[in-house]
């Protein structure tokens, strides 16, 4: 009996070991498959166009070509990477700051002020999360043009108009996430501040805002990745050849302007990926955590 039990344990051990080896092999194969496209980008960034046309599968012969290709793409006036990087950074950072602060303020008022108006407003934000971009995008352009002409404000082809639009599209989900969190902040903390003579705005910015820190990770990561990689909204509001151009617009414009020079296209995608991958190396834990929590909420 006991020998039998031992045998089962032994069998389990052997089976476990086999499973583990299988898992190791599976992981390695999958990892190679997942990294292969990046490897292809890197290798073909260092080849000449003639080499790629001759045979698409191959290794770089001379790494000097890599530097030549990068210089060619970097100095390309159609791509204008540095300008696109600057515009993308400005638009993403300002949008994130405005969406986060304004949504936190709104969510706090909506939680602390239970009237039928605040309930109605919150329901509107929840309902708006279902609205796909496609159903508002055509009227948005004409409406922004009309409104901009009327107010003498450049809403199209400007940083400001795009950032304002990102506030509109991003706030519903952001308010929803903050709303769920603010509900769990004990009211007593705020009442204490109130009694100590703190103004209403002071209570929010000094007491509540710092407490929201854990949700900020979620909000910044979800909105940040979306805005940084977004293509359609910048295309419609900035135009494909305007003064202000984000990185996705620059990449698409660059690719469209070339008779498939794959080596240069690969360099342009490499440059476009670099900022976000560098950020990921440093903030991997927060980015993954933010994305997962955003999905689960």
């Amino acid at each position, binding site marked *: 009996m006991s020998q039998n039990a031992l045998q089962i344990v032994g069998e389990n051990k052997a*089976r476990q070991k086999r*499973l*583990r080896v299988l898992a*190791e092999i599976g*992981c390695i194969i*999958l990892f190679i498959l*997942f990294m292969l*496209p990046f490897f*292809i*980008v890197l290798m*073909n960034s260092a080849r000449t166009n003639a080499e790629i046309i001759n*045979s*698409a*599968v191959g290794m770089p012969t001379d790494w000097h070509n890599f530097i030549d290709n990068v210089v060619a793409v970097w100095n390309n006036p159609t791509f204008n990477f540095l300008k696109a990087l600057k515009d993308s950074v400005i638009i993403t950072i300002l949008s994130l700051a*405005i969406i986060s602060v*304004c*949504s936190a*303020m*709104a969510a*706090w008022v*909506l939680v602390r002020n239970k009237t039928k108006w605040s309930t109605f407003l919150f329901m509107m934000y929840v309902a708006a999360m*279902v609205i*796909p971009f*496609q*159903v*508002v*995008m*055509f*009227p948005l352009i*004409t*409406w922004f043009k009309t*409104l901009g002409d009327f107010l003498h404000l450049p809403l199209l082809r400007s940083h400001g108009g795009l950032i*304002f639009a990102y*506030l*509109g*599209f991003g*706030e519903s989900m952001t*308010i929803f996430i903050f709303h769920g969190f603010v509900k769990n902040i004990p009211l007593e903390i705020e009442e204490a501040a109130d009694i100590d003579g703190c*103004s*209403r*705005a002071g209570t929010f910015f000094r007491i509540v805002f710092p407490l929201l820190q854990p949700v900020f990770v979620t909000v910044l990561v979800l909105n940040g*990745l979306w805005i940084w*990689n977004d*293509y*359609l909204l910048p295309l419609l509001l900035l135009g494909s050849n305007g003064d202000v151009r984000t*990185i996705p617009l620059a*990449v*698409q414009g660059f*690719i469209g302007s070339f008779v498939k020079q*794959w080596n240069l296209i*690969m360099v342009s*995608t490499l440059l476009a990926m670099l900022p976000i*991958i560098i950020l990921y190396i440093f903030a*991997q834990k927060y*980015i*993954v955590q933010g*994305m*997962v929590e955003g*999905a*689960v909420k």
Partner: protein
Amino acid sequence: MVKQKFFSGRRERKITEVLFLVPTVLAFIMVIVIPFIIGIYYSFTNWDGVNPPSAVVGLNNYKNIFTDPAFLHAFLVTVEFTILNVIAVNVVAFLMALLVTSQVKGRNLYRAGFFVPNLIGGIVLGSIWQFIFASILPAFGKMIGWSAISSSLITNANTVVGAMVTVNTWQYAGYIMMIYVASIQGISQQVMEAASVDGATYWVRVRKILIPLMANAFTISLFLTLTNSFKMYDVNLALTNGGPVAMFMGKPVQASELLALNIYNTAFKYSKQAEGQAKAVIFFIVLVVVSLVQVSINKSKEVEM
């Protein structure tokens, strides 16, 4: 004196609260509410995208789009793509989650690596995969003498949807994997160990313990991939731009043109703004139905618990 202080305090409170709501409410009205209402109205008019519409045409736009082979084809291809993609992404993501939560060496590196494609925008990775499908794979196929991949898979109407599913799975599976990983880590290790001691093999434990306990994560992931696949635009544009041409209802249509791309092209490529808007309204209605199903499923779960 005290009373006055109290009164001004209440007024200050009210003013602050209204001011706190102003930016978001203003942006909400200007960016969502007004364009949404205008959009619904324009879908019933002869709007040309430049001037305000000159006539209300009733349901004409809707009648036109439901007899438009390009739209019906785009709808069917989107449904096909969505079904295949939801299955592919979730199966791959679940298997990867099992792998990286096992005792394999370097599991943190694997987790981080599988997630990377998710950080990169659809335009950029669509362009990379266009190169892979158009140049690398055919060259590789010729090299090893494998005829199935010797010609480009994205210029063949029969394989182009599969190619898009491959790219989207590569992009999205790492993200869904992380949701499954979080769910698996929330399950008590003791339960799994107890079952193991009782002689349950690994697959039995996965089937009888892990999968039932992960029901919530499955619902979240399924709907996330469902809406995401249905709204797919960037990768579609950068990878295939709708091509190649296929025949449908006796008319040539774009074999891989999904709904979002079809809506955009209707308005800007074929200059039928009002019809494009009507298509967008249909697109919206489908997504509302999906969300309602999701909400009702979540509700029924709450009752169970």
